C-alpha cells in the first residue's frame, strides 16, 4: 500500500486484528453468512455472529442472517444456494475447511456468481496437522475459477476485503480474499477503518441489481446446474473467458476508486524499492511487508533492490505483472509459501515464469533470471535476515535455481545461509516481549496496552501473541512494538528493549533474555523478598543479565494481586509496571488510560472487579523495585536440564531442543521423513505447573482408587505389589496393606507425580475418605508443591519402578480394579481438570496393549498428538496404543479402515496357521473368544508359543506368519472424537460405520460444544446454553445420538459420565469392547467451556445425572437377541431440579443475567425434556421384542 495525499479525511484509528478488519467489511456487505469454525478463521464468524446478535446491520440496514453449518462443506453449500437465490453471501474458512469448499467453489465460479470467501491462509495437514499459516490451502484453490486477492497486513485485510466485494459484483467472478493465518489474522495493528458511508460510496448498487436479476426465482424461472454432454460442456466452459479477461481491470478500477476515496493506493502488483533495482523479490502475503522494510534499509545502505508484492493472483494479469517488475531487474527470486512436492517449481514461480514468457521477458532472453525460493511453511519465521540472505544469494555469481530460506536443510541442501545478527528495526521503536501464563492475564493486558497506545495517542503499535502447544499451564509470549512510524514488521521481536517474565518458574525452563537487547530493561515477577531475588536466579540468567548489561526490576505481582482480591490475575499489576518502566507515555496519563481500559473491559463482569483492578494499578508502581546487580554472577545453581539424563536418545536429541524453544534451529535431518514419531515422550517433559499437589494419607485412605480414575493427567496413581518390592524405597515412601480379597497380602500405594500434576484438585474433591476427627482433611489433600517437589519426585520415580500388577489376578475389573492397571496415556497437554482425558486414560488401562485409536481432529487430537511431547505410551513389553489423526470429518471412516486392515491381516495369519501347521491342532488359537482380560492373555501366550514353533520351520510362509502373528491377538479399534465430529461434521461417516456390522468402538467425548476452537455450539449443545453462535442460548435440545444409534438394533450404545457412576463407565467401555459389532459410547465430558470450576467436575456430573439431563444407560443388542429388554437404565429417576444444575454453569447463568424470562422458559423446557426422555427410556427398558436374529454375535465373529 502506498499513501496518497489526495484525501483530506480526518484520520480515525482503531486497533484490531486482521480477522476483525476483514469481518467488519464482510458483515456490512452481506445478507447471508454461513459459517463453520476453523482455526484461525473462527473469529471472523464469531464476530459476525455477535454483531448480528446485537442487531448490527449491513450498509443496507438489514441484519445479516448468520447460520452455523455442520461443516465447511455445508457452509459452502449454503452460501452457494443463497447466492443462486439472489442474496449477497459470504463465509470464512481456512486449510481443510477450504478443501471441503472446493467442489462448491468450482460450481460458484462456473456459474459466474458474485461472492466473496475470506480465508486466513493456513497450512494443509500433510505429515502432520498445523494450525499455522502458509499458502498451501489457497494454492490448492487455484483451479476453482475463483479470483484470488491477497492481503498483506491488517489494513489491507480490510481494504482488499472491500475491493473483493466491489470487484466480484462488477466482474461476476467470485473472489477468494485471503491473508496469512495468525501473522495477519491475529496481529493487532493500527487500522484506519472504513465507515458505512465509505462503503455506500464505493459499492455500486447497479451491480447488486444485476445480481438480483440473475437470481433463481419462480417469478422468472431459469434452470442452472444442468448436466452437459461432450457436445456442449467444453464450449460452454470457454464461454466465461471474457469475464476472466475483464476481471483484473475491474479489480484495478476498484482499487483506484478506493484510493481516490481514502488515499490508500493498491495495485494488482505493487512494486516497492529502488527504481533501477538489479535484484527483486516477488512475494505474496504478510512477508511482503517485511520485504518492504528490509528493501528500504538495504537501499538506504546503497543497494539496488526491490520487492514486487502480488495482490491479484487470479486472474493473473501478465501485463500488469510485467509492468510492475522493473526492467532493470537481473536476478529475481519468486518466493512461495507453499510446497508442491514433485513439481518443477512451486506455483507462484510457475505463474511468474509463464507470465514473463507471455510478454516476451523470458529468462535467458530479454527477461531476468528467475529463482524459486520456499519460505515460511506453517508460520516459520521470515524476518529481515531472511530477506537479506535472499538478496545476497541473488548477488552471488550463481544463485541456486531453487532454494529454501529460514531452515537448515542438511539433507537436500536447498537452504541458503542466513545471518541472524542482521537487524533493521529503527532505534525510535520500543519493542517489548512478555512471558506469561495463559491464566495470568498477560495477553489480555498486552492487548489493552496496544489499544491504549494506538487509540489514544498518535503513535503506532503492533501486537502479536505466541501460545504454546499445551492447554494447561500454557506459556504465552507477547511481542509488542510501539513507534512513531507505521509498523510493518511481520515477524517476532528479536531484540527487545523491555522483557518481562510474569512467572518465576519460566526462569528455570527458558532463556528469557534471549530476545533482550543490550541494556534492555528486565522485569521479573518474583515471589520473594527483593534481597533474595538475585541469589535465586540460575547462573545462566545472571550471566546473561551481566553480559547484556540489563537493568533488573522486580515486583511481587502475585502477592499484590492476591492482596487486591484478584487471585492469579497479575495482568493489571504487570501492565502498570510496564508503563512505569518504559515511559512510552507520561506515567500519570498511562495510569488514567489503564484505568479507563479496565473500566471498559471489566464493566461487563461487574463493578467489583473494576474497583479491585484500580486498586492494583494504584499500588503497583510503589511495589516496583530496581535491583542493584553485582558485577559478577554469584549463583551456585545452573538451570536444570530440560529432560532427564535417563531419557532416550531421540528425546535428548530432538524433543529436548523442541522443549527448550530451539526447534527452529534443528536441521531437516533431525526429523522423521513421514511424520512418524516415537511415543511416550510426555513423561520426559516435567512442567511443574501446579502450585499445589495432592499428598496421600495412607491411614485415612479407603483404597477406592477414585482419585486415580478421575485424574485427567495420570498424575496420581495407585499400585499393588509384593511387599518385597519395597527394598530400596526412599525413606518417605508410603505404603500400606492392600485391603481386597483378590490381592490380599500385597502392598498398596497412592502416589502423585509432583512435576506432572496440574493442580486441578479433582482427586481431592472426589476423595470420599474424611478424617473422622477433622473432616476437613481427607485421605488426599492439596499442599504447596515447591517444598515437597524433590521428595515426591524421588518417591514417584521409585513408584514407577515397582512392578506392574499381574492383570489376570484382578478379580473384578471395575472402577477400583481398573486403576491398578498401568495407564498408557499420561501427562497430556489437556486443560487442568479436563473431563475427557479420564476416559482415554481408562481406555488405555483396559485395552492399551492391543488398542488402535483413530482420533478426530479436536481437543483430543491436540492434547493427544501435539508436539513437542505426546502422551500415549507403552507398557513394559513395549506395547501400547497406536494412535493417529486423519481429519476432522472422516474419523469414523479412518478408524473403520484400521479395523479392515487388522481383520485382513488376522485372516491372513489364520490362513497361514492353517496352511503351515495343519496337523497341530491350532483350533484354539484360531477360534479363541478373546472377550476379556484372561482370554486375551491366554491368546497372547498361544501366539508366543506359535512364534516359537515357527522358528523351526524353514518356509517363507513361516517368516510371513511370524511378522503378522500378533494380529491373532484381538485388536481393539476405537474411533475417538468430540461431539463436533460425532454430531456434526463426521456424522455421516459415523452413521455409516454404525450401519456396517464391523467390530469398531466409537467413543464420543461429548463436551456439548466445539471445545478446541473455543466453544461454538454443536448439535450436542443443550437447550438454553449460551455458546458461540448461540449467544442468546441454544434454541433446540441436543440431538439424541444414542437413540439414533439404537434404531439400528445391532449397535451397542451406552451413555456414561465418570463423575456420576465410575463403575458404570468401566462396565460400558468393557461391554462395548467385548461386543463383536459396532459400539457407540457417549461420554459426558466436563469442559472449561461450561463455565464453572472444574475441580467440582465429579460432583457436577452427579448433579447432572440426578437432574435427568444425562441419563446413564446401556443398550445391548445381545439382550435383544435373548428376547430381553435391550436397554438398561443405570440411573435413578430425576431427583434434582434441572434449574439447580443450570444455575451452576456460567453458560446458562449468562442467559439468566441477559434475560431472566428466557432463562425460565429454557428451564421449563429442559425440565420437560428430561422427563420425556426418562419416560421413553423407561419404556425401552421394559419392552420385550421377539429375538430378531437369534444367536447373532456380530459381523466378524
Amino acid at each position, binding site marked *: 500500500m502506498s499513501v496518497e495525499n489526495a484525501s483530506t479525511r480526518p484520520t480515525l484509528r482503531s486497533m484490531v486484528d486482521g480477522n476483525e478488519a476483514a469481518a467488519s467489511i464482510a458483515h456490512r456487505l452481506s445478507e447471508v453468512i454461513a459459517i463453520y469454525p476453523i482455526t484461525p478463521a473462527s473469529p471472523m464468524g*464469531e464476530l459476525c455472529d455477535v454483531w448480528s446478535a446485537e442487531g448490527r446491520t449491513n450498509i443496507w440496514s438489514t441484519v445479516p442472517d448468520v447460520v452455523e453449518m455442520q461443516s465447511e462443506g455445508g457452509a459452502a453449500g449454503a452460501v452457494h444456494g443463497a447466492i443462486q437465490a439472489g442474496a449477497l453471501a459470504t463465509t470464512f474458512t481456512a486449510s481443510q475447511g477450504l478443501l471441503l469448499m472446493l467442489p462448491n467453489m468450482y460450481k460458484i465460479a462456473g456459474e459466474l456468481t458474485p461472492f466473496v470467501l475470506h480465508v486466513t491462509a493456513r497450512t494443509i495437514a500433510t505429515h502432520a496437522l498445523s494450525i499455522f499459516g502458509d499458502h498451501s490451502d489457497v494454492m490448492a484453490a487455484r483451479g476453482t475459477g475463483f479470483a484470488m486477492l491477497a492481503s498483506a497486513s491488517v489494513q489491507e485485510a480490510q481494504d482488499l476485503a472491500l475491493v473483493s466485494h466491489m470487484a466480484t459484483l462488477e466482474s461476476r467472478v467470485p473472489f477468494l480474499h485471503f491473508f496469512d493465518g495468525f501473522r495477519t489474522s491475529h496481529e493487532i495493528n493500527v487500522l484506519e477503518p472504513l465507515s458505512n458511508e465509505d462503503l455506500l460510496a464505493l459499492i455500486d448498487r447497479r451491480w447488486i441489481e444485476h445480481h438480483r436479476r440473475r437470481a433463481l426465482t419462480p417469478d422468472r424461472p431459469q434452470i442452472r446446474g444442468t448436466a452437459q454432454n461432450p457436445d456442449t460442456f467444453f464450449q460452454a466452459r470457454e464461454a466465461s473467458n471474457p469475464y476472466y479477461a475483464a476481471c483484473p481491470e475491474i479489480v484495478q478500477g476498484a482499487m483506484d476508486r478506493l484510493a481516490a476515496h481514502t488515499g490508500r493506493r493498491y495495485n494488482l502488483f505493487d512494486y516497492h524499492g529502488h527504481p533501477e533495482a538489479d535484484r527483486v523479490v516477488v512475494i505474496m502475503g504478510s512477508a511482503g511487508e517485511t520485504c518492504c522494510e528490509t528493501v528500504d534499509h538495504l537501499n538506504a545502505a546503497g543497494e539496488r533492490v526491490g520487492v514486487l508484492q502480488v495482490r491479484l493472483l487470479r486472474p493473473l494479469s501478465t501485463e500488469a505483472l510485467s509492468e510492475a517488475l522493473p526492467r532493470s531487474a537481473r536476478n529475481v527470486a519468486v518466493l512461495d509459501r507453499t510446497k508442491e512436492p514433485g513439481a518443477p517449481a512451486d506455483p507462484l514461480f510457475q505463474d511468474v515464469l509463464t507470465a514473463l514468457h507471455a510478454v516476451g521477458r523470458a529468462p535467458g532472453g530479454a527477461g531476468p533470471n528467475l529463482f524459486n525460493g520456499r519460505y515460511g511453511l506453517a508460520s516459520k519465521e521470515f524476518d529481515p535476515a531472511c530477506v537479506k540472505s535472499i538478496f545476497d544469494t541473488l548477488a552471488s555469481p550463481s544463485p541456486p535455481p531453487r532454494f529454501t530460506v529460514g531452515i537448515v536443510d542438511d539433507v537436500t541442501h536447498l537452504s541458503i545461509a542466513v545471518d541472524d545478527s542482521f537487524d533493521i528495526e529503527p532505534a525510535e521503536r520500543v519493542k517489548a516481549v512478555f512471558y506469561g501464563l495463559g491464566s495470568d492475564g498477560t495477553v489480555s493486558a498486552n492487548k489493552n496496552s496496544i489499544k491504549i497506545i494506538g487509540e489514544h495517542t498518535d503513535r503506532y503499535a503492533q501486537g502479536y501473541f505466541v*501460545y504454546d502447544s499445551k492447554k494447561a499451564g500454557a506459556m504465552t509470549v507477547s511481542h509488542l512494538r510501539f513507534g512513531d512510524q507505521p509498523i510493518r514488521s511481520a515477524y517476532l521481536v528479536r531484540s527487545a528493549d523491555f522483557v518481562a517474565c510474569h512467572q518465576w518458574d519460566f526462569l528455570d525452563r527458558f532463556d528469557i533474555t534471549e530476545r533482550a537487547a543490550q541494556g534492555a530493561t528486565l522485569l521479573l515477577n518474583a515471589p520473594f523478598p527483593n534481597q533474595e531475588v538475585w541469589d535465586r536466579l540460575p547462573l545462566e540468567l545472571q550471566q546473561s543479565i551481566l553480559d547484556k548489561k540489563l537493568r533488573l526490576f522486580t515486583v511481587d505481582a502475585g502477592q499484590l494481586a492476591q492482596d487486591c482480591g484478584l487471585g492469579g490475575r497479575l495482568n493489571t499489576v504487570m501492565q502498570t509496571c510496564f508503563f512505569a518502566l518504559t515511559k512510552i507515555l507520561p506515567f500519570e496519563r498511562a495510569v488514567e488510560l489503564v484505568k479507563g481500559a479496565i473500566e471498559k473491559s471489566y464493566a461487563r463482569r461487574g463493578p*467489583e*472487579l473494576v474497583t479491585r483492578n484500580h486498586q492494583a494499578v494504584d499500588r503497583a508502581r510503589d511495589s516496583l523495585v530496581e535491583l542493584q546487580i553485582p558485577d559478577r554472577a554469584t549463583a551456585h545453581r545452573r538451570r536444570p536440564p530440560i529432560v532427564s539424563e535417563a531419557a532416550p536418545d531421540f528425546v535428548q536429541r530432538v524433543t529436548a531442543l523442541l522443549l527448550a524453544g530451539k526447534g527452529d534451529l534443528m536441521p531437516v535431518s533431525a526429523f522423521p521423513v513421514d511424520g512418524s514419531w516415537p511415543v511416550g515422550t510426555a513423561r520426559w517433559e516435567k512442567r511443574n505447573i501446579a502450585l499445589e499437589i495432592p499428598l496421600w494419607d495412607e491411614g485415612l485412605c479407603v483404597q477406592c482408587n477414585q482419585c486415580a480414575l478421575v485424574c485427567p493427567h495420570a498424575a496420581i496413581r495407585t499400585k499393588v505389589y509384593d511387599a518385597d518390592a519395597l527394598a530400596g524405597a526412599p525413606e518417605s515412601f508410603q505404603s500400606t496393606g492392600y485391603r481386597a480379597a483378590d490381592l490380599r497380602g500385597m502392598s498398596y500405594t497412592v502416589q502423585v507425580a509432583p512435576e506432572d500434576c496440574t493442580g486441578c484438585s479433582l482427586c481431592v474433591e472426589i476423595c470420599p475418605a474424611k478424617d473422622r476427627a477433622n473432616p476437613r482433611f481427607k485421605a488426599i489433600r492439596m499442599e504447596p508443591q515447591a517444598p515437597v517437589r524433590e521428595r515426591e519426585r524421588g518417591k514417584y520415580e521409585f513408584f514407577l519402578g515397582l512392578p506392574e500388577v499381574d492383570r489376570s489376578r484382578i478379580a473384578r475389573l471395575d472402577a477400583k480394579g481398573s486403576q491398578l492397571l498401568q495407564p498408557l496415556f499420561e501427562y497430556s497437554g489437556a486443560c487442568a481438570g479436563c473431563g475427557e482425558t479420564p476416559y482415554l486414560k481408562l481406555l488405555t488401562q483396559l485395552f492399551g496393549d492391543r488398542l488402535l485409536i483413530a482420533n478426530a481432529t479436536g481437543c483430543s487430537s491436540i492434547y493427544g498428538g501435539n508436539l513437542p511431547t505426546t502422551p500415549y505410551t507403552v507398557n513394559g513389553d513395549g506395547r501400547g496404543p497406536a494412535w493417529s489423526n486423519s481429519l476432522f470429518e472422516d474419523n469414523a471412516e479412518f478408524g473403520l479402515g484400521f479395523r479392515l486392515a487388522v481383520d485382513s491381516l488376522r485372516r491372513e495369519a489364520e490362513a497361514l496357521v492353517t496352511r503351515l501347521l495343519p496337523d497341530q491342532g491350532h483350533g484354539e488359537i484360531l477360534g479363541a473368544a478373546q472377550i476379556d482380560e484372561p482370554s486375551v492373555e491366554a491368546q497372547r501366550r498361544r501366539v508366543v508359543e506359535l512364534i516359537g514353533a515357527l522358528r523351526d520351520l524353514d518356509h517363507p510362509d513361516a517368516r510371513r506368519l511370524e511378522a503378522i502373528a500378533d494380529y491373532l491377538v484381538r485388536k481393539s479399534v476405537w474411533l475417538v472424537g468430540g461431539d463436533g465430529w460425532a454430531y456434526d461434521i463426521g456424522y455421516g461417516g459415523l452413521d455409516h460405520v454404525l450401519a456396517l456390522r464391523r467390530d469398531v468402538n466409537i467413543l464420543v467425548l461429548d463436551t456439548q460444544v466445539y471445545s478446541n476452537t473455543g466453544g461454538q455450539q454443536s448439535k450436542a449443545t443443550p437447550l438454553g446454553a449460551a455458546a458461540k453462535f448461540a449467544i442468546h442460548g441454544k434454541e433446540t435440545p441436543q440431538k439424541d445420538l444414542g437413540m439414533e444409534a439404537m434404531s439400528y438394533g445391532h449397535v451397542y450404545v451406552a451413555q456414561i459420565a465418570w463423575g456420576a457412576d465410575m463403575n458404570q463407565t468401566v462396565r460400558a467401555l468393557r461391554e462395548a469392547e467385548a461386543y463383536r459389532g459396532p459400539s457407540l459410547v457417549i461420554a459426558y465430558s466436563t469442559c472449561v467451556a461450561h463455565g464453572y470450576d472444574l475441580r467440582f467436575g465429579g460432583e457436577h456430573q452427579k448433579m447432572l445425572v440426578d437432574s435427568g439431563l444425562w441419563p446413564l444407560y446401556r443398550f445391548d443388542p445381545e439382550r435383544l437377541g435373548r428376547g430381553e429388554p435391550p436397554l438398561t437404565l443405570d440411573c435413578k429417576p430425576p431427583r434434582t431440579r434441572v434449574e439447580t444444575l443450570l444455575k451452576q454453569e456460567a453458560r446458562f447463568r449468562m442467559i439468566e443475567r441477559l434475560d*431472566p424470562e428466557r432463562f425460565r422458559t429454557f428451564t421449563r423446557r429442559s425440565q420437560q425434556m428430561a422427563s420425556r426422555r426418562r419416560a421413553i427410556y423407561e419404556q425401552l427398558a421394559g419392552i420385550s421384542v421377539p429375538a430378531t436374529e437369534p444367536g447373532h454375535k456380530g459381523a466378524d465373529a
Partner: protein
Amino acid sequence: MNLSCTYLGHTLPHPFIVGASPMVDDLAVVRRLEDSGAAAIVMRSLFEEQVLNDELASALAIDGPALSFAEAESYLPEPAVREADDYLQLLATVRDAVDVPLFGSLNGIHGGRWLKYAEQMVAAGANGIELNLYQLPTDSRQSGADIEEVQLEMVAELKRRIAKPVAVKLSPAYTALPHFARRLQESGADALVLFNRFYQADIDPEALDVVRRLELSDSSELLLRLRWLAVLSPQLQLPLAVTGGVHTPIDAVKSVMAGASAIQLVSTLLRHGPERIGRLRDELARWLTEHGYSSLQEMRGCMDLSRCPDPTAFERANYMELLRSWQ
C-alpha cells in the same frame, strides 16, 4: 372494617405485604399477588456476598481459560454489555407490572459502593428500601459494639443517599436490642422489620458434611417476634413490621396487638399460593368485627409492654413460670 395502616411512607389498605422472596421472579405470580390484594411487595433480597461471588466466579469462569491457546481466544460467548443489572431490570419490570408500593431489598454487610445499589433501586422505581442487616459474626476478636457502629453508619449513609424511606430488617441476636433499635431510629431508619430468618447449617453425620437448610416458617416462630414487638413498639416512634411466623388470621391479630404495623408474608404464600393474602385480609376483618373492634388501629399495641395486663410475662418471668408449670 378499616384495616388501614401506615408503613414506609404509604397508607396501606391493610397490613399484609409480601415479604422478600423469590416470588417476584415470576411476573405471573406477582400479578396474582396484586390481584389477591397484596398491600405492598418487597423485592427479593439482593445479597452483597452473592453478587460479589457471582461477579468474581463468572469472571473466573470466562476469563480464566481465555487467551491461553492459539485456537481459542475464549471459550464462552461475550454477551453484550449489560445496560442494567438483572436485579434492577427485574425491579423495573415488577414496577411496571403492578401498582402497589414496591420496596427494594438490600442484604449487605459493607457500606460504600454497595449502597449505590439502593440509589439505583430507587431510580428503577422502588418506593423504599428494606436494608437487611445480615451478619453472622464468627470472629472472636470482633465486638458487638464494632458491628453495631458499622451497621448504624450504613443506615445513616443510606439515608443520606436516598430520599425514599428505609426499613431495617434485623436479626434477634443483639445484646440490647431496644437500645440498638433506638439508635437505628436516631440514624434515620423509617421502620424496623422483625426478624430475619437465616439459613440453618445442619450436620450430615454420615457424610461428615454441613448441609444448609431453609425450611418454611410456622406459627411457632411468631412467639419470638411477639415478644420483641411488644417490647419495642411502645418505646419507638417508627412503625414495626413482623416477618416470620404469621400463617393464620390469629397470628396476624397477635402481631398487631403486640404492636406491628405491617405484616410480611412469605412461607404461607409459598405453601398456599398468592390468593392466601386476600383470605387472611378478609378473615382478619371478620375477626375484628366479631370482637367489636372498629378499626385495626384501635387494636394496635393493645398487648404491648406498656399496656398488657402483665408486662413481666414478656420479661424473664415468662421463662421462669414456664419452667415451673412444666415441673
